[in-house]
């Protein structure tokens, strides 16, 4: 990792925040565009979540006896019921540790 890459990433991050505040006088996005932009987290985060869970170190699909899948399902259930961010992470991590260290 180079410092220059971190600086470029900092610049692009800043520009996504600054550009609209700087350019717009009024909110110009119509409801359709806003609705689509509101899907951005749902469209991007699973791409980060799925591969480390379903793929093993060599990059092939690992569906049998995979503790990460079970732990993730448990986390989803806790998240759905509690709507609590910390409870979700905690449930996933402790069930994962239970599966790899105890079972």
């Amino acid at each position, binding site marked *: 990792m180079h410092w220059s890459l971190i600086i470029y990433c900092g610049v692009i991050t800043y520009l996504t925040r600054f550009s609209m505040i700087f350019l717009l006088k009024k909110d110009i996005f119509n409801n*359709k565009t806003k609705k689509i932009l509101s899907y951005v987290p749902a469209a991007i985060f699973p791409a980060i979540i*799925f591969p480390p869970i379903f793929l093993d170190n060599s990059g092939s699909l690992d569906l049998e006896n995979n503790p990460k899948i079970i732990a993730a399902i448990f986390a989803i259930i806790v998240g759905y019921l509690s*709507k609590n*961010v910390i409870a979700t992470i905690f449930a996933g991590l402790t069930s994962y540790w239970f599966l790899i260290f105890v079972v």
Partner: protein
Amino acid sequence: MNNKLKTLFKGVTDVSPLMIPVFPFGIIYGVIGMELGLGAYMTLGASIIMFAGASQIVLLQLFSGGASSLVMFSSVGAVNSRHLLYGAVLSEHLSTLRLTWKIILSYVLVDQAFAVSNTYFKNNENNENKHYHLLGAGFTCWVIWQISTIIGIVLGSVVPEELGLSFTISLTFLALLINDFRKFKNIIVMLVSGIVATIGYNIIPFKAYIIVSALSALTVATLLTLTEIKKK
């Protein structure tokens, strides 16, 4: 207490409850940064320069997978594209401010600060110092993010790798989506993104799987939005 300070403190107290999940997120980021060998200065440096948790972790994950600089840079841009929405929504309230204010407030426009200050702006249109609310909320996030990064850096040198802390990346992002679990359309969008990424991880060149799956899922989101509008 004058109105400016009062508004500033309102921003601090409004955003504080949202800092509870940010804290472990920052610690996880710091620990992983150290485990990947970025070193303390670079791990903390990224938190100060970028100040964007989700994209900092994406950057680390792509780095550990051996992605090219261009892919890391564009993935960070994609993850942060949601800020365009925040800026557009807030521009209505901030357009009369001096440029210096816009420059400062843009640096601290993170998810949590946007959430609380946008609500405050809507309810307090007539407060001429309402931008102090975003200043207070934003810098509270900033301080918490830097402190938790530093704690993570310290812990990173002692936490053993066997604990599988890299799994917490998946878990933290999963936790950020809990509000989407109840919406059917969001579940479809999430599944498209996740499945395309899992299949594409090995097939799509240059580790561009995050961008490709995000664009596929956003296309589906657009189609869903358009059919919804037609029905009305």
